[in-house]
């Protein structure tokens, strides 16, 4: 049981919640995630990155986008409600050290998991450049928080409604062409963005880490549902990751695997919406 202490809608489909989780708040490190379930008997388990934690308050912060059944129902929960299943912190923490010049690239909701990592990298003495991007201005999150950390800060939107009209790979390429080039890049966002960030840095031989968010069941290495191909080896995102060398990840296979249950989920989602509509109609 984990109580919702705070809830805020960050953009049309993106929510921030602070959850009561004293043990997780105490143990978690940048890069780790939790798994939650909104129904103990019939809920599904979804992984969400820990965006922040407050050990004193005994709370963690999650930021999520409504993309399916569970995230939708989660978005309908309110302060005071309890999430019945919350487990973590899971995954291997980000390896934080002083690399020198680092670039943190966050796309859309990916800015949320990037935030604690950027913070830790800054604290470790790195010179931190942050690029955040989204489809449009409304979808930019945590701008102020990220600006505070950044030595250099770049915002891009696909439609040019805010910041540069560009994909994040454009400024990333420019940074790679600078002298000195970055010592490390970490990119978190939609799979396709991480794939192209990795392709962008590859010719410059800049070490690039990505944080993968695959389908998971247990989150402790037991089911293998989250497996990805990394440099020809099978790795489990839940225990070996979530961060991997982006130049070695087989993104195409990963994206196919992310769609494994798409048809069933869509079917379910429609039934679910029908049910919600029915409930609303009854109310009226």
């Amino acid at each position, binding site marked *: 049981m984990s109580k919702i202490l705070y809830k805020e809608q960050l953009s049309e489909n993106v929510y921030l919640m602070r959850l009561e989780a004293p*043990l*997780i708040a105490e*143990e978690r490190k940048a890069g780790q995630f939790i798994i939650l*379930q909104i*129904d*103990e*008997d*019939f*809920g*599904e*388990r979804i992984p969400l990155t820990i965006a922040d934690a407050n050990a004193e308050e005994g709370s963690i912060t999650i930021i999520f986008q409504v993309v399916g*059944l*569970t995230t939708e129902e989660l978005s309908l929960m309110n302060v005071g409600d309890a999430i*019945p*299943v*919350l*487990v*973590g*912190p*899971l995954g291997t923490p980000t390896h934080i050290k002083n690399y020198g010049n680092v670039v943190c690239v966050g796309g859309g909701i990916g800015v949320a998991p990037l935030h604690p990592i950027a913070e830790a990298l800054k604290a470790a003495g790195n010179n931190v450049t942050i690029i955040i991007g989204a489809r449009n201005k409304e979808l930019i999150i945590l701008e102020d928080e990220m600006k505070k950390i950044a030595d250099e800060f770049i915002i891009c939107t696909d439609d040019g409604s805010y910041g540069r009209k560009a994909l994040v790979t454009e400024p990333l390429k420019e940074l790679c062409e600078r002298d000195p080039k970055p010592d490390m890049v970490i990119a978190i966002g939609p799979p396709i963005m991480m794939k192209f960030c990795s392709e962008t840095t590859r010719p410059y031989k800049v070490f690039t880490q990505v944080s993968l968010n695959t389908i998971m*069941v*247990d989150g*402790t*290495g*037991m*089911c*293998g*549902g989250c*497996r*990805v*191909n990394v440099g020809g080896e*099978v790795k489990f995102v839940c*225990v070996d990751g979530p961060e991997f060398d982006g130049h070695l990840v*087989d993104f*195409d*296979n990963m994206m*196919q*695997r992310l*769609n*494994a*249950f798409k*048809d*069933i*989920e869509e079917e*379910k989602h429609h039934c679910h919406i029908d049910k919600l509509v029915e409930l609303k109609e009854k109310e009226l």
Partner: protein
Amino acid sequence: MTYVPPEVIEEKVLEIYEDIKGRYAELKNKDKLKIPTVEMPAQDPHVRAHNLEEVAIGYTLEEAIVEANRCLQCPTQPCIDGCPVRIDIPAFIEKIALNEIQQSVDIIKEASLLPAICGRVCPQESQCQATCIVGKAKKDVDKAVAIGRLERFAADWERERGAIKVPEVKPETGKKVAIVGSGPAGLVVAADVRREGHDVTIFEAFHKLGGVMRYGIPEFRLPNDIVDIEISTLKKMGIKFQMNYVVGRTRKLTDLMAKDGFDAVFLGTGAGLPIFMGIEGENLVGVFSANEYLTRANLMRAFDREHADTPIYKSKVVAVLGGGNVAMDSARMALRLGAEKVYVIYRRTEVEMPARKEEVLHAKEEGIEFHFLQNAKRILGDEKGRVVGMECLRYELGEPDASGRRRPVVIEGSEFTIDLDTVIVAIGNGSNPLISQTVPELKVNKWGNIVVNEKQKSSVDKIYAGGDIVLGAATVILAMGEGRKAAASINELLAENVETEKEAEINS
């Protein structure tokens, strides 16, 4: 053996029952040996292949009494030696024969707190029943006294009356024991340690208790309600359960002792690391580890498509790779989830299959197709990365290998392709490294299994381990046997601690 409907079994048994009723004392061994084995009544294969209800229905009282009358009560009691937790088998069977069922249950419970589970999933044919004199006399282990079925009967009888006795707990000692994992090993340790009056907390990573009995073994072989009820007895003993708690992540193992004051820890985390074949196409969409497939179906209840949010793959043709109980469970689950065709592909022959005979028989009755001396070479996918087929190779048996089984040897050039959309890999489990990675001093062998001494103690003081994390993937009852040993060692350690503290108090 062909399927016999329950009413036919019952009719036959009732005749015998009328004949032997009240004559237990006067039956001679030769009379007992004449009584035929009472078959386990089961659901019709055609019906059960589409539902999740338990396959084996269980004995009626009369059936149990007749079967119990087959036991010769031999003085050497070889069955007890075959039981990892040393249940007094002849004694509990005699009580059933005398229709004193509660007394029978009490005898079983002296050695095992989970009889409804053991009676269902133990491989009795290779343990207690393997050594049974009746089976030996008839030169057929299948004709041994059906000890497992009788154990199940007694446990069910007590449960169905809603009056499961709670074992006595000695006065509180103030010593704290942490159990990591709520599977069969952990539950046995918890019960045995709690009986001595120690404070016991079980930590479970999942949101439901029971470990492999919950996520792995399907409802049709071991209903969740039975696991829940057996665990509720432990709760009544005052054992505490902490779910959604991953020791090694939520809290470091060493912190349980250093910060939370646990005096001893038992690791019963199981063999939770799926082994894959390492062949081409294994990451395609539609290839699942048996762990994932069964966890979705069982723990996450994906079989209940209407209510469950967790999806399960829609399959028409499924191949299960492997020949153990997990392979049987996966195949039979796939059938129940609507697959039109399910193959079990095994590279040796039926004789070498590690699965229980009964499971194989049940699977065959339900229509699972067995392909022996074959194995996957690579899995084929379409442009969307989804499984569409599998290339297989044929094998023949060569010389015996280290396990004593004849080694399968590939027949070169024997490739052939089968069309299918789902592959379930059930070739075994390694040990999950999550805990051992976080405690470097904890010694593991080359397979990652925790190394323990004869008392189940690990290389680190106060840390004990047992079950699959030590044995590699084995059975529920072997895990329980290890748990029993570990509990005895922990109780011994804590008793010494209590003694030393008392002495210290007196001296000061």
